[in-house]
């Protein structure tokens, strides 16, 4: 092939730096280092930490939140957000508990949990994509709306008496110390990782987050992609509601209170830009491990909950600020 003026075209390499160089500079590696440090600190903090059953227990601190976190990561990368996820859990759990009063069995309860999640997601998605409302405002509204409904239904009561087969979804073990929830977490991590990083749909998500207008001008159905992401986030909240309700064995309207902030924190800590356009599922997985281990380690030390949130908050700001500080120091 030759150009119009007869010269040979210049050859452009695919990439300049290899895979290794990019991994070394990645956010995920930094985060992984922090995870290792916290793990080591935990082993020093308590002699019981390394016990397999103990470690297995620790995973319950993050599995449910992380499942929502995967869908939330996709949503945030696309430039939207869903702050109603904890509200969805409360509503889905309430719906399941209410159905329980009529003798609905485990398959029915699961179906109800999933359906409520999807419906809530569809409601958020329709308000954002059909009416063009900003998702942060819509989901702050539905956050109160969804939980409000479960307060009206339950008042200061609780639904109890979930069947044993249902409880297994939150407390059961698939193999040795590997819980059903941990298995779900791993499977979803894989699925979301593949969807985001290996499919056309994932590429569309990144494009929309970076430049929605150019995405539209390139033939991407922007509204449809966003609608699917809201549905997925609702669905994952429904799944988290099933696991959490099964694990706790009861439904109160305050269930999963303020989880939306922990989920968003996990996603941002995982390196997903809150402005949209970048991030990875691997980052969210590592961030989930970090947050889970911090919570559990501090729990072993009998540190009160409020100190844990201070620690997580400081970690978030620290991890985000340090690379900037380093870059700034290098420049001057």
């Amino acid at each position, binding site marked *: *092939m030759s*150009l*119009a*003026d007869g010269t040979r*075209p*210049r*050859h*452009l*390499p*695919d*990439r*300049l730096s290899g895979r290794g160089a990019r991994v070394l500079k990645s956010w995920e590696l930094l985060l992984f280092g922090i995870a290792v440090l916290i793990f080591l600190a935990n082993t020093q903090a308590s002699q019981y930490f390394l016990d397999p059953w103990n470690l297995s227990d620790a995973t319950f601190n993050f599995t449910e939140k992380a499942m929502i976190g995967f869908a939330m990561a996709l949503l945030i990368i696309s430039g939207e957000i869903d702050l109603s996820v904890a509200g969805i859990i409360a509503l889905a759990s309430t719906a399941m508990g209410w159905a329980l009063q009529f003798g609905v069995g485990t398959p029915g309860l699961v179906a109800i949990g999933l359906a409520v999640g999807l419906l809530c997601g569809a409601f958020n998605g329709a308000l954002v994509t059909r009416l063009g409302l900003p998702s942060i405002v819509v989901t702050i509204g539905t956050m109160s709306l969804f939980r409000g409904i479960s307060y009206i239904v339950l008042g200061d009561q609780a639904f109890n008496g979930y069947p044993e087969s249902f409880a297994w979804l939150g407390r059961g073990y698939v193999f040795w110390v590997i819980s059903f929830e941990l298995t779900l977490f791993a499977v979803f991590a894989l699925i979301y990782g593949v969807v985001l990083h*290996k*499919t*056309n*749909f*994932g*590429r569309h998500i*990144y*494009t929309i987050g*970076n*430049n929605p*207008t*150019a*995405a*539209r*001008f*390139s*033939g*991407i*159905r922007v509204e449809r992609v966003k609608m699917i992401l809201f549905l997925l986030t609702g669905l994952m909240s429904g799944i988290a509601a099933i696991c959490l309700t099964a694990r706790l064995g009861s439904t109160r309207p305050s269930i999963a209170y303020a989880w939306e902030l922990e989920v968003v924190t996990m996603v941002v800590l995982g390196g997903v830009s809150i402005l949209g*356009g*970048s991030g990875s599922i691997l980052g969210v997985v590592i961030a989930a491990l970090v947050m889970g281990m911090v919570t559990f380690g501090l729990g072993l030390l009998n540190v009160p909950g409020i100190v844990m949130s201070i620690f997580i908050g400081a970690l978030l700001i620290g991890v985000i600020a340090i690379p900037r500080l380093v870059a700034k120091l290098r*420049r*001057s």
Partner: protein
Amino acid sequence: MNYSSDIAQGVTVPAEPVLRLSGITKTFPGVRALGDVELELYPGQVTALVGENGAGKSTLVKILTGIYQPDSGTIEVDGQETRFPTATAASDAGVTAIHQETVLFDELTVAENIFLGHAPRGRFGLIDWAAMNTKAKEILTRIGAQIGPSTVLRDLGIASKHLVAIARALSVDARVVVMDEPTASLSAAEIEELYELVERLKAEGKAILFISHKFDEIFRIADRYTVFRDGEMVEAGMIADVTETQLVEKMVGRAVDTIFPERDRRPGADVLTVAGYSHPTEFADIGFTLRRGEILGFYGLVGAGRSEFMQALFGVTRPSRGACRIDGKVAVIRSPVEAIEKGIVYVPEDRGAQGAVTAMPIFQNITLPSLRTTSHKGFVRMAEEFALARKYTERLDLRAASLDQNVGELSGGNQQKVVIAKWLATRPRVIILDEPTKGIDVGSKAAVHEFMAELAAEGLSVIMVSSEIPEILGMSDRVIVMREGRIAAEYDREGLTPETLVRAAAGYDGEAAA
């Protein structure tokens, strides 16, 4: 130092440059933006900095104004070596810049805009409003601007805002004034005023660095020139010693045909027929036929509804009425997806906002509308993507470090090449180019023109929206002129003159019958 004697005697070469850059090198990841660059600016003289997009002009301006730090090299002011670690340091050393798109504040007054950040202070460190307004008035008078200092900026037109930007640049005691494409958004009359202002600044002994793509203005006001090419300084000298053609050759590194490419102009069968396309507010009753291998030019004044119509044809907006046929079959286009499926693609005028995803790599930009062909069952295949991207970037002679480089790091001309490559990769039937060479340099411009001719020769039908008369006359087989949302006239290229086009676009006489 006293330069006035020099000027009075008409001596054009003062002995010492006020600012001298030597050995300046600046690299970004994967790209060397500037390599061992020299630049000297003399008091009372205008030095034109010329080069294609991506030659390193903007990087140099950023180094001069303290925004970037060079990797190596020295900056001397009056023979004293110095550094500009911050924008303030550059400003304190007397270097000030007037940018293409100046940052001003609509809600503040003219005086506040001029003195933002260095307002005169009175007692207790409070702003001395009276002094500020007086000083602002002084500066405005000096540059011949009839603007009241207490006018709110929002109430001014674009040209007056530009004068405020210039006044702001002069409010610091500047010795070196950098003007980065200052005439880009000005009318002919306003450009004349700007030239007068430049003369006045010269008379005051300021050293001016003037960056422009327009050769007529360079030859009109510059005393010296410096040519950059691919991040290196090619040559510097006196304007009086070169011709326009020589300067272009130095810029591009080869001879450039100022004539448009010759090609076989025998359009084939009808490809696209549009009838009665109307929109509630933007355009009405647009109808035409586009043939295979034809370049159809759309000329008109800004706001004539050309882009709005093209976006409706591409499915971004929906027409209220009208029909469109492709190969004689009725085609319903309700979204860009449907337009792309039917082989109609659109290269928008607003590259940054609508064309390129600047934070994503070149290859992902190019494969965006073609993912269906590069992927397998919805899974991306990078190897296929790189192959497709390489095919089209090489054909367009893209200048980049790698296909994985972010589009935002490329120059304007190369970004445009990426957007064009993206659409060609979909193998379209009709390509709509909206101001395809706006804001890109001479070399890239010629490349885009040559490429358009090639595409047409291969049987692609091209619609070219352009406000540049030479481009319209040079490239089009037929020209449609739009005025106020309607087709004002349609012409064959044979015997078409600029005067006819301008008259039809402005609606001067009864000649404008379609």
